[in-house]
């Protein structure tokens, strides 16, 4: 039986709705369930699914709909009750969090006239409006939401720059301002390195590595993925951030991370870094680093970028001096770069336990930038890797649900997250895929990221454990072995704690490397050995 229950005038955020939907689907006697706002799109969806659409007439995006397809009346009843309970439970729990609540942006500003940052994680269609209001009221803005159009982004950034305000995002998942984590960010030691990043997990990975190297971060500013990449946006936020960090007396070193930028934007960014007079590090993912300048170092990967920045912050004066410091320490020393021999030894030992027919790399990522880092490296070293993030159309996955050959998948991509929470919040989708790839007799190595910190799931490593066991057991039952390589992006001060996440993985036989870069190196080397001679 299909049944619709409506509660008018109760708006809930999409993440709550999605979690409520998931909760309902697991109930006994419930075939399908949707908890959603009655937007025209959802109404159409429900009527397509055979729910009585007439009951949705006259409803709008402010009205809550619980649609349940249940085996009997009692199950439907229980599901509806659970939906309302779970939504109100969230409200009451958060009521005890010490957060002051108010009904509108203007009222919030009246309550705290000194507010200086607006965090916006609303449906994309509304995010731009609220961002504009916040900028006009003189607040810096961070827009977590995606689905903000390019034109809107340009207009907002022009407005922001004209007022000297930071417009972080859209689609900006992370920042650290004055040591405080915004959205998805880690508890990183405060220090002298100012970070500007057009990539979410790239910012998280570098700030966490900087913390681990004993250095610290003054400010970490997210810009949104299009800021440097799109010539029309022109790096407006990045350039303002660099200028501010250049003038900031606490910041001694600048670190810029992003996807390959538009050439004219890259030129402006480099010029701004030179003009800052502070030693700087640049890393553009998937782009061959330019030769170092005296005070501007070009890093080849996120780990190297973090290392160079940490060395600069210790007072190493030039890029050349930093490089020679790195060359002195190999292996796993503090500033050492991964030692080729030890990586190869580790990979060979793992590969030697593989059964015949185990050939392929399967990278399953929750962090987009981390996936890209692994993808670019693997694609170059293995002669071709399929991915939903591939820039090369020949290698772009036609069906991201089906793996073929070497594969690196970004499970945080829109394809996977439509109507579902991001896998960093809800790791279920990744665990599912991990179990699936583990059962594939052609899988030679599984490569995963575990991103902790604020915003992330309370125990992402633990959430992978059942799937890891399944994968290991499936390989063993075929007479083979399943190497699983991981890295944990996080710090010990994060709510989840770095050490316990690593320990949980190692207890299951997972090899945990100190950075995503190194984890990818090991996994790619295993896959290289395994797939030697195979047709990709």
């Amino acid at each position, binding site marked *: 039986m299909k049944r619709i229950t409506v509660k008018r005038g109760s*708006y809930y*955020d999409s*993440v709550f709705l999605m979690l409520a939907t998931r909760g309902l689907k697991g109930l006994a006697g419930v075939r399908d369930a949707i908890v959603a706002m009655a937007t025209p799109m959802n109404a159409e969806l429900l009527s397509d699914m055979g729910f009585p659409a007439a009951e949705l007439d006259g409803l*709008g*995006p*402010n009205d809550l709909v619980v649609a349940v397809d249940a085996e009997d009346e009692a199950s439907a009843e229980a599901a509806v009750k659970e939906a309302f309970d779970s939504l109100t439970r969230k409200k009451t729990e*958060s009521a005890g*969090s010490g*957060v*002051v*609540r*108010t*009904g*509108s*942006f*203007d*009222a919030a*500003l009246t*309550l*705290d006239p000194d*507010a*200086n*940052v*607006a*965090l*916006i*994680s*609303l*449906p994309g269609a*509304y995010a731009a409006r*609220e961002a*504009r*209001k*916040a900028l*006009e009221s*003189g*607040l*810096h803005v961070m827009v*977590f*939401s995606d689905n903000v159009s390019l034109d809107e982004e340009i207009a907002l950034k022009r407005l922001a720059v004209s*007022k*000297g*305000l*930071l417009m972080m995002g859209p689609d900006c998942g992370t920042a650290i*301002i*004055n*040591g*405080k*984590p*915004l959205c998805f960010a880690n*508890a990183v030691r405060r220090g002298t390195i100012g970070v500007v990043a057009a990539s979410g997990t790239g910012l998280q990975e570098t700030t966490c590595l900087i913390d681990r190297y004993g250095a610290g971060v003054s400010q970490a500013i997210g810009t949104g993925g299009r800021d440097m990449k799109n010539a029309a946006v022109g790096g407006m936020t990045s*350039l303002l*951030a660099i*200028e*501010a960090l250049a*003038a*900031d007396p*606490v910041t001694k070193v600048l670190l810029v991370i992003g996807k390959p930028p538009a050439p004219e934007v890259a030129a402006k960014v480099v010029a701004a870094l030179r003009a800052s007079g502070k030693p700087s590090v640049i890393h553009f993912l998937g782009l061959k680093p330019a030769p170092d300048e005296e005070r501007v170092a070009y890093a080849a990967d996120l780990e190297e970028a973090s290392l160079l920045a940490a060395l600069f912050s210790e007072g190493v004066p030039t890029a050349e001096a930093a490089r020679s410091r790195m060359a002195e320490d190999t292996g796993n020393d503090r500033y050492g770069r991964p030692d080729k021999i030890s990586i190869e030894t580790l990979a060979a030992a793992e590969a030697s336990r593989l059964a015949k027919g185990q050939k392929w790399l399967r990278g399953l990522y929750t962090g987009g930038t981390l996936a890209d880092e692994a993808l670019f490296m693997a694609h170059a070293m293995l002669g071709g890797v399929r991915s939903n993030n591939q820039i090369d159309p020949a290698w772009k996955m036609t069906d991201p649900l089906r793996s073929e050959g070497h594969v690196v998948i970004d499970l945080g991509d829109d394809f996977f997250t439509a109507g579902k929470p991001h896998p960093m919040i809800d790791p279920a989708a990744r665990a599912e895929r991990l179990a699936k790839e583990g059962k594939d007799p052609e899988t030679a190595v599984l490569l995963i990221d575990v991103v902790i910190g*604020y*915003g992330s799931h309370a125990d992402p490593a633990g959430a992978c454990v059942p799937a890891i066991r399944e994968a290991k057991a499936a390989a063993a039952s075929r007479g083979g072995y399943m190497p699983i390589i991981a890295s944990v992006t996080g710090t010990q001060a994060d709510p989840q704690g770095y050490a316990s996440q690593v320990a949980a993985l190692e207890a299951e036989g997972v090899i945990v490397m100190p950075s995503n870069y190194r984890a990818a190196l090991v996994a790619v080397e295993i896959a290289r050995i395994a797939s030697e001679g195979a047709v990709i």
Partner: protein
Amino acid sequence: MNAKPVLDLFGGELRAINLGLESFAADLVREGAAAVQVDWRPPAGGDRKAIAALDAIAAGTTVDVKKANAEAVRRILAAEPTVIGIGIAKDVVPGMAKDLVLHAGPPVTWEKMCGPLRGAVIGGLIFEGLAKTPEEAEALAASGRIRFDPCHHHDAVGPMAGVMTASMPVWIVENKAFGNKAYCTLNEGLGKVLRYGAYSAEVIDRLAWMRDELAPILVAALERFGPIDMKSILAQILQMGDEGHNRNRAGTSLIIRELAPHIVMLDFPKEKLSKALAFLNANDHFFLNMSMPSAKCSVDAAAGIEGSSIITTMARNGTEFGIKLSGLPGRWFTGPAGVVDGLYLPGFGPEDAARDIGDSVITETSGIGGFAMAAAPAIVKFVGGSPKDAIDVTMRMYEITDAESQSYRIPVLDFRGTPTGINVIKVVETGILPAINTGIAHKNPGVGMVGAGLVKPPENAFRDALVAFAEKYAI
């Protein structure tokens, strides 16, 4: 580029306003930063046309809306409503005539009138001697020989059905600061009364007694007493548990206290004076018909200001709810009258209720009534049961108003002024509708009051008004 605001951020304390995922605010608080969570809802309930209007107004207007609204609320706050006397409607109310029946709310035809309003019209025609029986009155009302017009088009207001006819006595309230006047009939008490659509002989007889005996006594008393400073009385009643709309016990008591020494001195038979005082004493709502014209002449002073989005009229006729904006004079924006969510007198239930009716929402328009709910703990049952609910109602109204009254203050809110000057832009943007206290009439003519409660006005009236405002003023 100017990087100073960013450097100020780096050098200062992070203070965030969070719109969306609440965990982001909770994390900041956990890390020792200040964060305010906005319980965000789609603006204008997600209505695209209204959102486009909001954006157009925000992008720029031909007249400085902020300045216009500041002037509108300045005038509302500066009003000095004063009762200067009682007159007969046809002598004092502008445009009043024998063949004219005034009613509450926006314009409505006889065909579309709800039960209680039809009943009141029938009673009014009988009272005027224009019809002898209810049947005759109905035929006359339908004949086209009687004109109907909103009280609001004649500087008047009327509670519930709000029917005013030519020979009824009316309060005359003058706004001393601006010189404009407002009129309202005298309150008849509870039970079977004209304003709830009753028209039996008992109702007509009472109206006649009020015209022939009560009004002359009050007129004479007022001549001795002089004008009544309503601003001062309204300020006092908010400190005595009234909100000036659904609770008027303190207001009525104060009026009796002021007038009694003068009434006893009048040259009328003692029995008549006693009957008049007993009538006032038995009718807690006697004061309502004085607070309403006080509110009316206060907000009327703010009408017609070019570029102002302040609401200067809200009214219902039992069929439709309508509002008017200061900057769009002469235009009504209407939606279907709501069903009152309320408590019922013994023997009645929601199935007996007429839809929302009356001009008494002029009190909310001026910043008292439901907006001053926190001042009236005795009637919190109407808004959820606890004094906290009443405070919440008032607190929400600060989010849709532009000013706070300097005169009308609420003790429990540390004598904060009542939320005043409803801005339609804020109403549509936040989706917070004005909180309106009201009585409930029986749906059939002739029965009377069946309950009281809180009513939600139709959102579309506010959105339509905003869209029209944007059409006129957005660049």
